[in-house]
């Protein structure tokens, strides 16, 4: 039982907040102040008329810590709703990456070929570089990036995870 309780899990949590100044600092400060992990964090306004933003945070911890994280988030005054997408059931996670690969010759061809396998789109290109845009589950994106590294990847930018529960129910 004790052993089970100490297993570190990964969770994707969606937080609906008032889009007001300092709200992101409040959420981030909560994580750093209480020693919680942030693996990934994305935020943007989702309902302009209502002034609501959605924060998607991927975190890790023991079940007790994860429960604390949710309770602590929920008691922040501008927080409307906290949903543990991982715990609630099946969900879709996506992340977008922009990957710049420089090079010529075989490596350049191979990069384009692998990009095709991963459904990555070429958003900019020159004779000696490509910029790919890829959108996948984070682990699949990891694999794509790992393959691009030896092929001349010089820069990469990722958005962090956005997620939504499967099925017809809203948050």
């Amino acid at each position, binding site marked *: 039982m004790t052993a089970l309780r100490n297993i570190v899990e990964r969770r994707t949590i969606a937080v609906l907040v008032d889009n007001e100044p300092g709200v992101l*600092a409040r959420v981030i400060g909560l994580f750093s102040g209480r020693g919680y992990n942030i693996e990934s964090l994305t935020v943007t306004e989702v309902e302009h008329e209502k002034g609501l933003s959605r924060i998607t945070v991927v975190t890790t911890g023991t079940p007790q810590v994860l429960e604390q994280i949710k309770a602590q988030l929920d008691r*922040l*005054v501008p927080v409307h709703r906290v949903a543990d997408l991982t715990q609630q059931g099946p969900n879709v996670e996506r992340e977008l990456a922009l990957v710049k690969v420089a090079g010529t010759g075989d490596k350049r061809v191979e990069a384009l070929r692998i990009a095709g396998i991963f459904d990555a789109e070429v958003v900019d290109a020159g004779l000696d570089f490509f910029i790919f845009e890829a959108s996948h589950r984070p682990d699949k994106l990891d694999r794509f990036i790992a393959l691009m590294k030896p092929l001349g990847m010089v820069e990469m930018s990722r958005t962090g995870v956005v997620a939504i529960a499967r099925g017809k129910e809203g948050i």
Partner: protein
Amino acid sequence: MPATLKAVETTSADAAPAEAQAAAHQPTATHTGAEMVVKALVDQGVEVVFGYPGGAVLPIYDALFEQNRLQHILVRHEQAAVHAAEGYARSTGKVGCVLVTSGPGATNAVTGLTDALMDSIPVVCLTGQVPTHLIGNDAFQEADTTGITRPCTKHNYLVKSVADLPRILHEAFYVASTGRPGPVVVDLPKDVLQAKGGYVEKERVVHRSYRPQTEPDPAAIARVVDLLQGARRPMIYAGGGVINAGPEACRLLTELVHLTGAPVTNTLMGLGAVPGSDPQFLGMLGMHGTYEANLAMYSCDVMLNVGARFDDRVTGRLSDFSPNSTKIHIDIDPSSINKNVMVELPVVADAEAALRAILAEWKRRSAHTDRKALDAWWQQIEAWRGRDCLRYEQKGAVIKPQYAIQRLYELTAAVEREKGIETYITTEVGQHQMWAAQYFKFERPNRWMTSGGLGTMGYGLPAAMGVQIAHPDALVVDVAGEASILMNIQEMSTLAQYELPVKVFIVNNQWMGMVRQWQELLHGGRYSQSYSASLPDFVALAAAFGAHGIRCEKPEELDDKIREMIETPEPVIFDCCVAQEENCFPMIPSGAAHYEMLLGPDDKAAKPISEEGMVLV
């Protein structure tokens, strides 16, 4: 203009955001921001503001100057303003209010805000700020107040437009006082205070998202009664949440204690929630709690926690905390549940609502506890009580600190009995605080103000100031140590200005006593930097501040001098010179379990403190 007026008429039903609503209700720009601040405070029922002026808040001081509904108490340091507001809030159940300037005014308030956050005290702190166009420019007396206070407040606001000001002010009081109470900062740039706008009545302001759950789940209440009914060794453990819920919650708790026949203990924050003289009250629990309270916590089979948070000072070593009990936890803050101790039955609710529901269910069922089992349980508890863990011997020519505090309690209680003068106690932090918690018996809630969570030396004197302002005819005593009192001694000047007859009772052992005690028990007697050197002459100090000074060095003089203190109509500094090396017992050393408690100096050799214990604070 007609459009705006129309919006006013169609208010309550529409679900538009509060800002939009607030904006809609501004028919004419009639007030400056500063005037709105004063108006909002009055509308919120504020009678007293503790503050200190400065450049950024001068418009508010101007507005204060032109009215007489709000009393302003000029403190001598902003930290003291917050502690005074805390003392005011804790002794009245109202929201305490603070007004300080930008920059250093705000940063000085940080300790007080953190203190209020840790002990869940409702405080609204208004801070000045440089004008909006200068924010971020490192302007004179600029500080990132909302940034600095974000982790030490329940919530904070930077008001960027006068249109938002009335809404934010009303929201601040709502947030500070509902759910788990706490401090709220409203940062007010000077140009917003000078701009004109329309005032919005507090009734029109509804918070968008903050709706703490206060009513308990009936199914959970039924299970609480099941568990209490089936308990053979029940134990009720009540904390500051019951005090915050109000005197009615305290009355309901006492009724539940009597109905169930269960023993009850209070945390440091909860003292007064049940009458201290109640035979079922086992005293305070925790690190310096009583033997019977801690062993009953260790040995119980059903624990009902009402409004306490399983603080490390209460639980001791977690793995040995009440290992055989089924735990029920009533708390208004869901994040308190399962934070330190896993509980079987959580109840998220206001303590009063939960206690009322439990009592109703108990009476509906005509429930009763197993009398035979309970008798056996009480027999065991009486045996523990028989150890008389707070025993000490007053012998020789030196006053024992325990004796000083016990006599202070008994003589103030006598005054209360005979003359009906109510006593309120505040403390600083350290040994004297624990002795006060052990030897005072609080018959009612809101009579005991102490810095529990943060442990702020310098809390007691300003807190006593706030209490005295709320209760002008009461006897307000700050039980202090000679080291703590020097941390906010400047407030003696405030006492003089407002003729507040606070009594400062210094238990003077010339040491930072609790530090010294830990150094003795844990650090091989290396008394590094814990001696109170170069102390002032407290009697002369009292005179310098226009107060009355009393020094007492002999046990036989103590009673007369305490009476002299009580009868003095002015503020008093009482320098009580006590035995220097007395330790505070009982004590559960850090990292130890409840059953490993040390009862006195002879106990320590038998139980060396573990390595793990050494690293804890």
